């Protein structure tokens, strides 16, 4: 069960429907691993419903009622049960939808000998939404961020100076935190990362790459 969770602040914005799409997708993916956060969200949603019921009603004319009544016989849009693709195990359906296949079918950009990144298209033009593949025991060079970074562990795990993180764990870092995550020795680690500014490597060995690390939002 996940040990690291989004703050109540973030969950409130998520439930109220005001988080940017890419961040919202990351939180939604975490909820699929985390019954506690689902329950917390359900309560925050109850709060929304209570506020909704206490709005001052704005009159709606009969014309609109009649328009809706006339449309009741329309064929409803097809609905389907979201299926889990066994090839990608227990990944949240939302991610499967964006990936359109399993991890091996994605196109991976090799950044260092132990880090590859695959960019997924969400339609959110302000945030990069990407999968990071870190080889077992591999290290992401020490880096910092100019913006915020959400991370969700999808497979394996990693650790940094602040702790160690496993499947379903969620981390949110604000701008200018510096860290150097290392994948656990036992298996490769795959994380989802949502960024609004590109990584900046801080060590001399990788700093030359910074100009090439553009944000790939979209």
């Amino acid at each position: 069960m996940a040990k690291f969770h989004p703050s109540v602040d973030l969950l409130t914005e998520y439930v109220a429907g005001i988080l940017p799409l890419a961040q919202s997708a990351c939180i939604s993916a975490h909820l699929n691993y985390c019954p506690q956060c689902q329950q917390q969200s359900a309560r925050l949603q109850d709060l929304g419903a209570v506020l909704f019921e206490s709005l001052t009603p704005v009159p709606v004319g009969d014309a609109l009622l009649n328009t809706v009544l006339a449309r009741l016989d329309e064929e409803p849009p097809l609905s389907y049960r979201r299926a889990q693709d066994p090839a990608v195990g227990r990944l949240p359906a939302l991610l499967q939808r964006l990936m359109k296949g399993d991890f091996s079918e994605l196109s991976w950009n090799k950044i260092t000998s132990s880090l590859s990144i695959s960019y997924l298209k969400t339609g959110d033009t302000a945030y990069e939404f990407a999968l990071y593949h870190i080889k077992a025991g591999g290290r992401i060079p020490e880096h910092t961020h100019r913006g915020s970074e959400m991370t969700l562990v999808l497979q394996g795990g990693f650790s940094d100076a602040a702790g160690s993180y496993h499947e379903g764990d969620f981390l949110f870092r604000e701008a200018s935190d510096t860290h150097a995550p290392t994948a656990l020795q036992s298996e490769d680690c795959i994380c989802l990362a949502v960024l609004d500014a590109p990584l900046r490597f801080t060590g001399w060995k990788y700093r030359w790459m910074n100009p090439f690390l553009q944000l790939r939002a979209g």
Partner: protein
Amino acid sequence: MKNAGATVEEKIDSASNGWQGPTGRRTDEWSECLTQIAATGDRAAFTRFFRHFAPLIKAFALSGSSLSAAHADELVQEVMLKAWQKASAFNPEKAAASTWVYTIARNCRTDMFRRLQKFDTPLAADDFMPDQEPSEPFAMLQSRRSRDTIHELMGTLPPDQAQILAKVYMEGKSHAEAAAELDLPLGTVKSRVRLAIQKLQIQIDR
């Protein structure tokens, strides 16, 4: 099912206090009404449902004045049509009708914002709902208590906290936008939200 309408009216009369029976099945007026719509496609029931909820959905659409009156009407239409089409998926043991309608309205409004901003995304707001919702009786009981508690405690919130909640939930303002609008530091907005959530006993241990 010919006298079904009358039966429902009787049930509503006998259960106007909200809860009934150890199963905790919801028997409030609008949950009954929605169940009736699902069971028999009753248009009279739908009309009552519309007259109650459409003005709330319109108010929700217009809060924060981010949608025009025409878009607000379009949203009302979309939400009510969805309520009709999805009525059979409503489970009165899991949620109150008002929570169910609020969720549809929120998702439709989010999708409408994204359409208006010309987002080119493969995702709709419904896709963000968790794959499986908690179904254990304990979780459902908690949820029912939570909603009633929130309802009762709402009146005890200081106005500045209630105002921020309305901005975030109804007007769809982020904490940062609410802070800019009220000319308050972001930290103050966040702490008011947190205090309100504590007072309403919403926070759980995670």
